């Protein structure tokens, strides 16, 4: 098992999993907060269509967790899904 971090916390994953798969496998279902209603969101469509699972990867926002392969040492940060 390898590790990346989400908001500073370590997440163990199996090489080959996406960021979303690793988060779900470790019991996380929500990691984004909506802009208007401040509601929690996580993975919904799982195939890159709905954009509910947006995270920042190594400081770059707007990344779909369901598409980005997890990589050891990657720093994933969550938030509003915009520029934070």
């Amino acid at each position, binding site marked *: 098992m390898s590790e990346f971090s989400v908001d500073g916390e370590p997440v163990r994953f199996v090489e080959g999993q996406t960021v979303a798969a690793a988060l779900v496998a470790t019991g996380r279902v929500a990691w984004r907060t909506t802009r208007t209603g401040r*509601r929690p969101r996580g993975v*919904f469509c799982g195939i890159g*269509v709905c954009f509910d699972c947006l995270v920042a990867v190594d400081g770059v926002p707007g990344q779909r967790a369901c598409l*980005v392969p997890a990589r050891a040492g990657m720093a994933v940060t969550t938030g509003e899904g915009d520029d934070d």
Partner: protein
Amino acid sequence: MTEPADLVVVGAGPAGMAAAVTALAGGLRVALVDSGTTVGGQFWRHPPEHARAAIPTDDLHHRLREHRALCGALSAGREAGRLDARLAHHVWSAVHEDGGFAVHAVDRRTPPRERTVVLRAPRLLVATGAYDRQLPFPGWDLPGVLTVGGLQALLKGGGVVAGSRVALGGTGPFLLPVAAALAARGAEVVAVCEAAHPGAWLRHPGALLRNPGKWAEGAGYAAALARHRVRVRPRTAIVAAEGDDRVTSVRIAALAADGSPRPGTERRAAVDAVGVGWGFVPQLDLLLPFGCRLTETADGNAVVAVDDGRRTSVPGLYAAGETCGVGGAALALAEGRLAAESVLADSGAASVLGPARRAGVRAAVARGRAFARALALAHPVPPAWSSWLTDETVVCRCEEVSAGTVRAARADDDARDHRQVKHLTRAGMGWCQGRMCGPAVHCLAAGEGAYTPAERLVATPLTLGALADLDDRPSAATDTGGTDKECS
């Protein structure tokens, strides 16, 4: 591959793989582009090659022999220098250029970096598949509620079971393999709510009888579900999901003939994950800007119109699989072959299949299309589905537009189509550009007719920086006033 391609295939699912392999067999040079990290599309979604030992998923797949054969042929094509396979490349636009096509992609092999790439060929084949069609219901935006396809993708792509107690709902045969796969991996599938009436098939027995393979497939799932004691409940629907920060229960109701919940039948089931899907929406984004002729299919979708060789109304542009109408993997494989045969014929190359086998594939496609039509008629979107919405139910997940707002726009104004509702309410203006809410908003606004998605000139988001660096852009200094596009 250094020589320019004869054909660009967008989408490496069953249709795109079959098309690419057939075109390669016919001697063409092919560029095959897909957003996934492996070929196979959604049907054959796999972990990346290097991870397959650590994440075994073969038991979740069907038709793997065909998959392996196609992969083998693609590898051979690559070794022969005639296949340019571009994985993790997201196509954001395809346009006419110099009598052929330019396919603009974003290379995302090393996220979060992205770089634009342009692939050119005289012919273009679009096999971009489909995604789950969604109907909103109270609580569908709670974490833990996924599309059926999302549950499946986590399983097949990452070996991850999204919950330990799962309810599935919607309509269509896709619910069954996902239920079986979840059960096989240890999840308790507490309910499979199929909105359709089991007797609906009896109205179209011919299509089923002509497709005996489908019987076997259905029987296989039935056996698997019986083994895990999973019950499919016909004429029921998940009408609400409940929970604070994540889903903890669903409400399930029996449906009347029009699809409205029958009073007094509601019951609650504790769950930690939900999967919903109401058939599929074909991914037409790359096709619509070309102005291809469209047609309607029995499932309520507008799809691209093709001739029996899968040629669209735009010369040099072909389509195969779900973009021509949702029909499943077997049909997509056959259509991919057929479309590639047309490409070969139109390029002046010899047929790979030969007349007899090509006629056979054509007949199989016709049978498959008839079956898809029967399937769509047996699994309709329930006419009264919107009766389970409250005014507060979120319809547009991105912009958080409620059903009440959409209904008010329709009542007050002449917002009788989803584009007009979008302008007035922002439903469909967010990140997903109406891909999730489009069919539902169409139902709420228009109430009839097939759903034609809004034209999306940008098929997938890309950063302005990557776009600004697009290499074949004419420089401003030389281009200003310098093009010969004078209005006549």
